[in-house]
């Protein structure tokens, strides 16, 4: 049953990869979307069954076969769905299905072969992502982890004839390698320490221990895993690949680089909640890195001009939020934000995709503007997405982001809270800068549409003409946009905090996943320990559930939470206001600010010169070493020398042995018979 | 001396002589039937209705001159006809032609009517039939003449090709009877269904019988498969260079083979010596009657059907007959398993 979930997309991949180029676009695209929908249905049923179980036993494990059976460690290929992964599979399959549908329209300009290739990659990605999510131990998860990395590489470089695209793909792949390496190290460390890589076993092994005061083995393992997460989820220092990843088709950016894959790191930390909550040092690191990333990306996003890059940086910064939440132990909040973010970020990307589609590949917001009239659907949905991410009360983003900020504050990370708040201000600002520049004001026609390599050459001629009528999103795209918009509005309501009379359902639902789940629970685990384990992720709900001492805490929390809510909503509105001021009412002001702080502006425009720094510090030295040292030195001299030597030796021997090859059958038979006689003689002799 | 041994020797002698005679008789039958079919009289002068014609032929053959090409290989040239005849005789040795009998109590224990009673008789016949090839091949090669060689190659290729389907048809019957002994097979056909249909394998194995008949004709190089001696193309095929009694031996071998094939067919498909009216000890009569009928059919076919073309022959053998035989065997096996014979 569980195996079906990743199996469906995989079948889709097989078909599309094998005979896709012979199928019509309708068939291959339809098939791809269909398998996703099927797997969504299965996931829904699974989650339904899961919800039917009692809270303490909410976990369905399905072991396919034993992968590695060795003493002392045994690794099964097993899938497990528990509340956490339940949320994830719903997000992946649901949003994934929507984006597949969207893609059928978006990629329609591609040739049949390319079309099928695209969908085969997309399906393969979905399959791997589901393996990652469902894997019940780190190794299976790692399979998915690498798989999605591969697919992301393939899809970023989908238009591989464009150098920038293929470069971006390579960059993503290599940067991820760094993280994956750390991930493997962490995994091995845990395997060595506890002879298991199964999440539940690990949890039950670790839970009894007291949280490490100083930096110890647990912290090290957690840190390594976190480095892996930074690679996959584009955090400092490994975030550089994500903006470039925008070279890929927009739906890909929406699915992989906004909704699902990049959140894998967050998910992984949530998976190992017990481990992390026992490594406070690492938690601090996670929180700080998250906050820093959030702020940095936000500032960069403020000045970027490529619509997709802005979204990319906002993704990075939102991921930073999630890590911040994880870092302060608010796992539930982090996942909550992950889940809402999936909606509105996908929505935003798809909306930008619709814009790009309408403008035949134009991505520079300085050449847009005034599209509101031409693309009503896109505009409104995009606007909803923007409001949601900005954190205006009532929409999805608000609840999750607010919960994160609150938890940060409550757990005493005031500095981090300030940064978070500042970031949310930035978020609101740059998102609405995007909205205003794209949709409002006058159409600033581009000289020429750089849309040729997007297969839209046919329409390139009217791309430039500002007043040419633009086509709004075709039905398939519009449908998806609306669906996601609705999602962005309502998605938050399953996590309404108690402070405003909600009953943080999601938090309660997720809670068991961040503790030792019942089947694996040692039983000796006391209430307060469990509190420590769960952190404050589930807030008062958990408190209430635990009984007694929770109530006072809850009472204290509510007040703070309400105030903070007020603050953050105010911040959101201020941010929007700023954006309005700078980019609608008095556009000159923006340039004025830019001119008054030229250094800062250039710094931001060039993304803090991080890429250049990496290039100088890492890439160039490596290139030099490998070229001068390894290639011209080692390879040419040593390896080639060895090879040539071997060849010479072989030919030398051959020159001798050739004498025996007379080619006369009789001689061969003779030697054979001689052998027989000798062997037989030997056995008779002794 | 033990009467059993005497009886055995008697049987052997009887079989030997009667085979010789049967060859002679067949010559006469052949000519007569041919004549009738072609609306002629056939031999009439020698004896009543030319009954003595075969004798005359044999005498003539004996007095003919022995010709041997100088370039021929003397040893093999002489050996070949002997092999042919020997193979023919040996093959018949395995054929039973009557139920076990004590000759009305002359013997203290019943003996089998037949030269030898071996438990793998079917295979023996099969094997000796395949040995018969040597006679022809060697004859063709030894007489060092292109006609002979071609005839020999043709015939051996033909015999090998048709041996396969021949064996298959045998095998299907063996499957039904569950034994390799001809006697056992015959006894398996005793009795009747519904009181009047004799339990002959002919009715269980119509296709098997057809295949057996066809490949039997091919095995004995009879028309329409008589390529070894295709007068029009190869003068006389492998025995072009043979004359006098050596030729006669080939001639004899061919007819004896026909007799053997017919007798075996009788035993395999027509219930051997089982039949109505006649008492057990006269079962041999039934064998004779059935065999004669089959022999007549042989002649009948020869004088009715034209000769195939060689490639057609091979095509037919490999592309139709063999697959058909295999299929038949498979079906039979399935049936045997299903009905648990």
């Amino acid at each position, binding site marked *: 049953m569980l195996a079906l979930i990743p199996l469906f997309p995989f079948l889709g991949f097989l078909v599309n990869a094998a005979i896709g180029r012979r199928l019509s676009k309708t068939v291959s695209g339809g098939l791809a979307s269909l398998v996703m929908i099927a797997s969504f249905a299965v996931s829904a049923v699974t989650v339904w069954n899961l919800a039917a179980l009692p809270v303490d036993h909410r976990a369905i494990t399905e072991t396919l076969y034993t992968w590695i059976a060795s003493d002392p460690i045994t690794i099964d290929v097993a899938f497990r769905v528990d509340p956490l992964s339940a949320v994830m599979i719903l997000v992946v399959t649901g949003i994934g299905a929507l984006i597949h549908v969207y893609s059928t329209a978006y990629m329609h300009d591609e040739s049949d072969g390319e079309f099928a290739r695209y969908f085969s990659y997309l399906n393969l990605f979905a399959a791997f992502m589901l393996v990652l999510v469902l894997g019940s131990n780190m190794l299976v998860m790692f399979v998915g982890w690498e798989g999605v990395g591969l697919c992301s590489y393939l899809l970023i470089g989908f238009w591989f004839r464009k150098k920038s695209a293929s470069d971006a793909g390579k960059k993503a792949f290599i940067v991820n390698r760094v993280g994956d390496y750390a991930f493997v190290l962490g995994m091995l460390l845990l395997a060595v320490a506890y002879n298991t890589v199964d999440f539940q076993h690990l949890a039950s092994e670790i839970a009894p221990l007291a949280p490490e005061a100083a930096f110890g083995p647990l912290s090290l393992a957690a840190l390594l895993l976190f480095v892996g997460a930074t690679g996959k989820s584009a955090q400092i220092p490994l975030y550089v690949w994500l903006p470039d990843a925008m070279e890929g088709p927009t739906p890909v950016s929406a699915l992989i680089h906004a909704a699902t894959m990049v959140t894998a790191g967050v998910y992984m930390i949530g998976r190992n909640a017990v481990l992390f909550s026992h490594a406070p040092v690492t938690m601090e690191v996670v929180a700080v890195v998250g906050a820093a990333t959030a702020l940095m990306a936000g500032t960069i996003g403020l000045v970027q001009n490529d619509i997709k890059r802005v979204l990319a940086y906002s993704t990075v910064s939102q991921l930073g939020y999630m890590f911040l939440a994880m870092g302060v132990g608010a796992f539930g909040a982090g996942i909550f934000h992950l889940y809402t973010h999936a909606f509105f970020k996908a929505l935003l990307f798809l909306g930008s995709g619709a814009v790009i589609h309408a403008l035949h590949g134009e991505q520079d917001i300085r050449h847009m503007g005034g599209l509101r009239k031409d693309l009503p659907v896109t505009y409104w949905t995009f606007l909803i997405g923007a409001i949601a991410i900005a954190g205006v009360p009532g929409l999805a983003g608000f609840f999750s982001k607010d919960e994160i900020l609150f938890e940060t504050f409550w757990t005493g990370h005031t500095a981090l809270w300030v940064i978070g708040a500042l970031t949310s201000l930035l978020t609101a600002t740059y998102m609405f800068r995007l909205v205003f520049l794209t949709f409002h004001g006058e159409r600033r026609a581009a000289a020429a549409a750089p849309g040729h390599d997007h297969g839209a050459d046919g329409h390139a001629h009217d791309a430039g003409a500002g007043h040419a009528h633009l086509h709004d999103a075709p039905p398939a795209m519009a449908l998806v946009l609306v669906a996601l918009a609705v999602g962005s509005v309502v998605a938050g309501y399953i996590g309404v905090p108690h402070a405003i009379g909600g009953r943080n359902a999601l938090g309660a639902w997720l809670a068991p996943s961040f503790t030792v789940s019942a089947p694996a629970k040692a039983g000796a685990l006391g209430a307060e320990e469990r509190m420590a384990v769960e952190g404050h992720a589930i807030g008062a709900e958990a408190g209430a559930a635990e009984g007694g001492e929770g109530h006072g805490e809850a009472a204290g929390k509510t007040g703070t939470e309400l105030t903070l809510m007020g603050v953050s909503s105010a911040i959101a509105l201020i941010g929007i206001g700023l954006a309005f001021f700078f980019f609608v009412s008095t556009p000159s002001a923006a340039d004025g600010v830019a001119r008054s702080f030229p250094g800062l502006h250039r710094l931001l425009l060039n993304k803090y010169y991080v890429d250049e720094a990496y290039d100088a510090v890492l890439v160039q030295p490596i290139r030099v070493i490998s070229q001068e040292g390894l290639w011209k030195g080692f390879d040419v001299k040593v390896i080639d020398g060895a090879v040539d030597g071997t060849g010479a030796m072989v030919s030398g021997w051959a020159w001798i042995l050739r004498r025996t090859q007379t080619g*006369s059958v*009789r*001689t061969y*038979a*003779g030697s054979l*018979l*001689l052998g*027989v*006689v000798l062997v*037989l*003689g030997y056995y*008779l002799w002794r | 001396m033990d009467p059993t041994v005497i009886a055995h020797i008697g049987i052997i002698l009887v079989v030997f002589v009667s085979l010789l005679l049967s060859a002679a008789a067949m010559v006469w039958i052949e000519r007569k039937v041919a004549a009738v079919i072609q609306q002629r009289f056939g031999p009439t002068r020698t004896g009543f209705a030319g009954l003595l014609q075969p004798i005359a032929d044999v005498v003539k053959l004996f007095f003919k001159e022995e010709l041997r090409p100088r370039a021929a*290989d003397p040893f*093999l040239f002489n050996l070949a006809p002997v092999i042919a005849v020997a193979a023919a005789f040996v093959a018949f040795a395995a054929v039973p032609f009557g139920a076990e009998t004590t000759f009305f109590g002359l013997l203290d224990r019943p003996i089998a009517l037949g030269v030898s009673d*071996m*438990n*793998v008789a079917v*295979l*023996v016949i*099969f*094997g*000796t039939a*395949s*040995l018969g*090839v*040597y006679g022809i*091949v*060697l004859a063709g*090669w030894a007489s060092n003449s292109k006609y002979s*060689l071609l005839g*020999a*190659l043709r015939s*051996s*290729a033909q015999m*090998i090709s048709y*041996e396969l389907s021949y064996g298959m048809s045998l095998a299907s019957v063996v499957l039904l009877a569950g034994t*390799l002994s001809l006697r056992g097979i015959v006894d398996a056909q005793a009795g009747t269904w519904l009181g009047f249909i004799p339990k002959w394998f002919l009715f269980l194995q119509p296709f098997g019988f057809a295949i057996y008949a066809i490949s039997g004709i091919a095995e004995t190089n009879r028309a329409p498969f008589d390529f070894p001696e295709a007068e029009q193309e190869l003068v006389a095929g492998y025995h072009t260079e043979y004359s006098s009694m050596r030729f006669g031996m080939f001639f004899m071998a061919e007819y004896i083979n026909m007799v053997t094939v017919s007798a075996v067919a009788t035993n395999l498909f027509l219930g051997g010596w089982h039949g109505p009216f006649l008492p057990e000890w006269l079962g041999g009569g039934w064998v004779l009657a059935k065999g004669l009928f089959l022999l007549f059919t042989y002649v009948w076919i020869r004088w009715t059907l034209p000769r195939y073309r060689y490639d057609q022959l091979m095509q037919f053998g490999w592309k139709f007959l063999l697959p058909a035989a295999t299929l038949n065997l498979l079906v039979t096996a399935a049936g045997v398993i299903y009905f648990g014979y």
Partner: protein
Amino acid sequence: MLFYVFGGLAIVSALGVIGQRNPIYSVLALVLMFASLAGLYVVLDAPFTAVTQIIIYAGAIMVLFLFVVMLLNNPLEGHSPYDRSHPLRRTAAGRMGGVLAVMLVAELAWGLSRMVGAGAPVAGDVAAGAVVSSVREIGVKIFTDYRFAFEATSILILVAMIGAVVLARREEATR
């Protein structure tokens, strides 16, 4: 008694095989040897094997050899341009081979002399004899204990068939 008759015949005909200058005679001698081996099998109470020996070897394989000999009309080794000597003339390799062959026999005899129960009569108990001669028994064995070997050989035959066809096909392209 029969053993010595057939055995002697086998040895003589085997010698004939390698002694004959004319391949046709070699083939015939080999057929004779097969026949005598078949006789031995009958003596060994394995009639089925004996008949099969005749059918397969004498009936099929040897005819095939005859064919080839007739097809390539190069009967006498003396006529090949490479040597005109008697087939049993000693070449260096031949001499070595002969010596080795003799040594082989010697070793085998030696081994036999040391073999326990070499003197035991070959006839097992009668029951065993009954079993051995039963065709059904053989069939059961082949299709149960040896079914893998059976399938393998069937594949082998198929491969050999194709290979033979491919090899012997006279390629028109080159001529």
